[in-house]
């Protein structure tokens, strides 16, 4: 009995293509919204959790793990204190330490943070699945007064290679204390990464020292800065250091050594652990997104009730004809449930296709513009949506189906005119 009912259900739906089409459209929109939100949500979470990768430890002045992560990686907030250059050198020369990247913060350019670092930064800073920073154009800095811009900085401020910029003291949006007399040449622009690197301005540690000569009092020097020899520009202190170790099993030992170092009050955090702690705090919003888009699916599906119930009275004659030609009451029930499930399944399938095509069209743009990887392809989420939306449609269809069955039994062998 199944196959004949399936063709009946199909023809019945095609016959009412306008109202059925609108119902399907509502489901398509709600399913697309849900899948879109899910894809962006997981893309953002993955991107966030891999803001920094392959770095085993981040060390800085003693403080909370989240604070250290926020200022060193996300360039938010301010460090409580700096760490001494000698402490940095001790870490850099410790056994099992494969590489270190020092960073020095505190200056800005038109609201974007300046990161003083070494060229090792461009080699060892990794994000995503061990992706390295890439230069969209130009080269890394080699000398003082050379700057490498993050993608967003260059785009927002329309900078190109060869442009000249001035850094400001402090990190406010508008700073009145400019490091005048120190023009920096843009020598490189990085590709988008979807990480705070996009919003950073990178210079060498020596440059940071050079522009602060004479600023010991915290205000701009009265006289112009004297030319400095490069070897006099070794910093006294840095803000934090990214550390890579030779073997993962060394991480905990090194972390303990840094945390208990008696020469200076230092903290070391594992970025992965700190990132997931941070996501726990800010990730509550994602649950709200999921809940809302889930509710939208329910609203979309409820159109099935309207579509089937509104036609029920006109269809009493049709049901009487089907009964007269031998249909059982449960065939009437099954016919309507099949119609409901078909509407839901069609909506889910088209919605999945729309999402796939939509993301295929925009994912390249989103990747280059925001560095966000939106996982493509059909996967478990799509299958789950198809199955559960179809089942939910069938369950919703049971109510009008039951009414139609009851009508058919009550009408007997008479056609209501």
């Amino acid at each position, binding site marked *: *009995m199944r196959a*004949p*009912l399936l063709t*009946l259900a199909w*023809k*019945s739906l*095609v*016959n*009412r293509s306008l109202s059925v089409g609108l119902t399907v459209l509502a489901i398509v929109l709600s399913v697309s919204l849900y899948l879109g939100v899910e894809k962006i949500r997981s893309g953002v979470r993955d991107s966030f959790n891999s803001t920094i990768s392959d770095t085993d430890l981040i060390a800085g002045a003693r403080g909370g793990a989240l604070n250290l992560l926020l200022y060193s990686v996300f360039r938010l907030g301010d460090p409580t204190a700096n760490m001494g250059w000698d402490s940095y050198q001790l870490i850099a020369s410790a056994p099992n330490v494969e590489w270190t990247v020092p960073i020095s913060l505190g200056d800005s350019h038109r609201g974007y943070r300046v990161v003083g670092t070494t060229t090792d930064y461009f080699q060892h800073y990794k994000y995503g699945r061990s992706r390295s920073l890439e230069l969209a154009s130009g080269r890394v800095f080699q000398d003082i007064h050379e700057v490498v811009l993050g993608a967003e900085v260059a785009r927002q401020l329309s900078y190109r290679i060869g442009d000249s910029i001035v850094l400001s003291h402090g990190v406010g949006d508008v700073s009145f204390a400019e490091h005048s007399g120190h023009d920096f040449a843009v020598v490189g622009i990085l590709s988008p990464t979807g990480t705070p690197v996009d919003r950073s301005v990178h210079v060498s540690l020596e440059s940071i020292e050079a522009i602060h000569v004479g600023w010991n009092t915290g205000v701009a020097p009265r006289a112009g800065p004297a030319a400095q020899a490069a070897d006099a520009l070794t910093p006294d202190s840095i803000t934090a250091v990214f550390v890579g170790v030779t073997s993962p099993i060394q991480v905990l030992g090194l972390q303990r050594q840094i945390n208990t170092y008696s020469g200076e009050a230092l903290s070391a955090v594992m970025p992965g652990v700190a990132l997931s702690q941070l996501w726990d705090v800010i990730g509550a919003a994602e649950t709200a997104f999921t809940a809302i888009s889930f509710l939208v699916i329910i609203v979309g599906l409820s159109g099935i009730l309207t579509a089937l119930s509104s036609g029920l009275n006109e269809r009493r*004659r*049709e049901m*009487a*004809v*089907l*009964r*007269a*030609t*031998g*249909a*059982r*009451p449960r*065939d009437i029930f099954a016919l309507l449930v099949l119609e409901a499930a078909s509407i839901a399944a069609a909506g889910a399938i088209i919605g999945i296709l729309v999402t796939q095509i939509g993301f295929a069209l925009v994912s390249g743009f989103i990747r280059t513009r925001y560095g966000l990887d939106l996982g493509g392809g059909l996967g478990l989420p799509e299958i789950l949506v198809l199955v559960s939306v179809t089942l939910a449609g069938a369950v919703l269809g049971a109510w009008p189906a039951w009414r139609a069955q009851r009508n058919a039994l009550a009408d*007997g*062998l*008479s*056609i209501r*005119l």
Partner: protein
Amino acid sequence: MSVPAILISDLRFSWPGSPDLLDIDRFELGAGESLFLAGASGSGKSTLLGLIAGITPSQRGEVTVLGERMDPQRPARRDANRASQLGVIFQLFNLVPYLSPLENVLLPLRFSPERAARLRAAGLSPEQEACRLLEVLGLDSGGLERASTALSVGQQQRVAAARALLGRPGLVIADEPTSALDHDARDAFLSLLTAECQASGAALLFVSHDRSLAGRFDRAVELDAINRAAVAA
């Protein structure tokens, strides 16, 4: 002698909360016989047809169609029996609007493997037989290509008659099938219906309030005459 098309004995029926609508001591329709059953509307005609067709379960007494009892306890059996042995023609709205005329004629085969089997046993393909019936009943091929809803009432009734006869059921019941037709169309439809029932050996139970048609059938019965509930009322 062969089993009667319909055999009713000691039948009593009332809708919930109402007095007895039907109280029939005995009613019989012979195999292949055509019978005119006359009754005013509200006299219980449609209810009686529902009981015979097995759509409405009987309360007391027995209804037997072509030797098969329409058992009130076994709805699925009644449905299967109806699908196999009965053709039904309504007064109006006989066609499923979203099926073509041809698909409407073939509709019983979806619910009755027996009818399909009888066609196969006779060496007929369902489509051929459906087209033959439609042609015999006077539906031109132009009508076949139109949507069911675009057919005139007379054409719709012919499609319904072809559907009722497809696969040679033993009994055709028709509930006022001509009341929406004009005089000429009615005569033509009646001639074709009775002739085709005779040709296929199906008994015909024809219900109408229009007693001028009674002469075209083997036998005519007044429902009030066999229904004791009507006399009492």
